[in-house]
């Protein structure tokens, strides 16, 4: 599933949050989105997910048979999974209940849910399931894990994760990198990931978009891992 952004503009007062003329994310790509705080990464994700109204422009999802504007229909929600922040979580449920809820409303059987959860055993590290804790009482890292898993539960064709490595310990960060790459290889899904961690972004994303003041100032081909130096230069990271 492709994502096509056309003349997309969003302002908050006088501040330009997003200003992207034309940008296409190809089907099956893993795109990394990087930028300083306030660059517009989360706003862009929210525009793609139709959670805020664009001042101008469109976001379209297309493939050989479909071409839809996300603001005009809800069809795309059937094949899109996302986790941006805690407002995606129903925090008075336990993680078990939350996964069951998402699975059941999407028509997944308990067996399918169980199969999915088994893939994430290492990622969950025995801290998520069966704990009898509400999501609101989990640590920030465990909430992050619940959100990411919930986004991936329905095997979406488009997966959007806003700073998925936040709050995760190093093992979990490594685990999620591996899971995302494997998921992309197995399903050919389109994955959008934003992160402040340049190393992780370079590790998993063959294409990286650099955002500044709402504008994509660089569209970097990272198929050979060559984006690292360019990004370090931009962010002025030196030894």
């Amino acid at each position: 599933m492709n994502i096509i952004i056309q003349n997309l503009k969003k302002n908050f007062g006088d501040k330009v949050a997003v200003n992207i003329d034309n940008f296409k994310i190809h089907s099956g790509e893993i795109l990394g989105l990087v930028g300083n705080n306030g660059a517009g990464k989360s706003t862009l994700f929210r525009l793609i997910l139709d959670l805020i109204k664009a001042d101008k422009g469109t976001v379209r999802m297309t493939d050989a048979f479909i071409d839809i504007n996300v603001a005009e229909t809800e069809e795309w929600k059937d094949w899109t999974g996302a986790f941006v922040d805690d407002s995606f979580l129903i925090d008075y449920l336990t993680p078990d209940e939350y996964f069951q809820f998402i699975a059941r409303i999407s028509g997944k059987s308990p067996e399918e849910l169980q199969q999915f959860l088994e893939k994430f055993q290492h990622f969950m590290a025995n801290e998520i399931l069966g704990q009898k804790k509400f999501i609101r009482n989990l640590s920030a890292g465990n909430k992050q894990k619940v959100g990411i898993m919930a986004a991936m539960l329905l095997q979406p064709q488009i997966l959007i994760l806003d700073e998925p490595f936040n709050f995760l310990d190093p093992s979990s960060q490594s685990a999620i990198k591996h899971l995302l790459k494997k998921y992309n290889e197995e399903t050919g899904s389109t994955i959008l990931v934003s992160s402040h961690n340049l190393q992780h972004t370079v590790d998993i994303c063959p294409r990286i978009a650099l955002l500044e003041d709402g504008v994509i100032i660089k569209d970097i081909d990272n198929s050979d891992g060559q984006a690292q130096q360019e990004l370090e230069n931009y962010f002025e990271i030196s030894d």
Partner: protein
Amino acid sequence: MNKYQLYKLLRNNESLKERRHPMFDKNRFMKFLLIFMWLYYAAILLFMGVTMAIGMKGAYNGVAAYHVLDGWFPIVLIIDFWVRFIMQDTPVNQAKPYTLLPIRRSFLMHVYLLRSGFSLGNLYWGFMLVPFGLIAIAVHFGWITFIGWLLGWWLLCIADGFCYLFVRTLLTKHMAWLLLPIVIHGAIIAAMFVPEHNWLDMPCTILLNAFANWNILYIIALFAIVALLYYANFLLQNALVYNEISKKEEVEVKNTAKMSFLNRYGCIGEYLKLEVRMRMRNKTVKMQFAMGLGMMLLFSVIMYFSDVYDGSFMKSFICLYNYIVLGMMTLISIMCHEGNYIDGLMSRRESIYQLLRAKYYFNSLLLIIPPIILLPQMITGKMSVWMNLGYLFFTVGILFPILFQLAVYNKDTLPLNQKLTGKQGNATQQIVSLVILFIPIGVEKLATLLLGDPWGYILLMSMGFVGIITHKLWLRNIYRRFMIRRYINMEGFRATRNS
């Protein structure tokens, strides 16, 4: 900075906090509406004070008018107590932002308790008492008597305020503490209304008359009671702030009922489970339910044991109230709790529609409670079965659709798991509340006037039945309109989250 300067600074911060509440910040209309309501109720109290003073003059065999009012001061204090639930926060909440600053905790508690005690809110009843006292006391018995009498009322209001703070703080530990004021107030009301004569009339009159006559013993005694209540609050609030900072929160879930019987209903079953869990696991929503249930029981008990509510209007009102209160308590702010996780809901197709359906079914099912509570009234013939059936169907088929319209317009997130925040409803919610509480009585009266009993109620049932069988249509309409406004609502929910 000395203690007085610090006191003024903290007090000013609280005033700023009230003035800059997000609800008023974004909604000037709300601010003006609240000021208008404040003035409106003040005008009503003023009117009551004047008319009571004039009306009671010489009406009770020479008993001074103020003695008549004094006999009813417990009722005034009971109303005052429950109104504070809407308006007043606790010192524990107010002090928390300062607990890590170099300000002694005990000082903070004193600041907030003094602020509560000397708050202008404690003078609000003055709008009724001052004009009443001027006409009924000052003119006939002199200014000194009037001022003494007013002092007594003021101290009683302060004492009531401290009682409220005490109970409200205990409620943060466990909701069962709500039974304490319910039982005490119930006993007071029973003592006043159940026997032939008000049992509390004489003691209340003696107390306030003592103040009017500047009886030093009574004055000292009431000051001592106020001081005692102040100190009790101080100890409790102080302990709780410490607990809040240092507690290991009990986080293990006690109730993870799977509700498998709802699995057969598919998607709707899942949203029904969500609705049940939301009610059971979040303090704010639980408290709303408890208060609604408490009021239903209170009305029912009073109605059963006395004839105070035996008039036609009051019977209709209590019947309507019992059927609408539980739904109204949560549906007035429909979608506001969901504002906490609206993004997650909006990222799933038609989840809002399914949620609305689940809410409708759940709230309709809750209506098995009012007939049970009103059963004694039906058995004794105080309330007809047809009236109950009429209001039951009318509520489900007509009033709920009206309340559900708010799903399109509500856009302020309400916290799920905090103490009652005192967040006032917006203008639309307040208007809808008034419509819901009074228009149906007019409809009932008109129907029974035109068609008699029971055909008037059968008409109400029929009207409700139409709403029930078309529920999917009007819910779908609400959902469509919500989706048209979704950006405005989502922005509102995001802006008011965690406020």
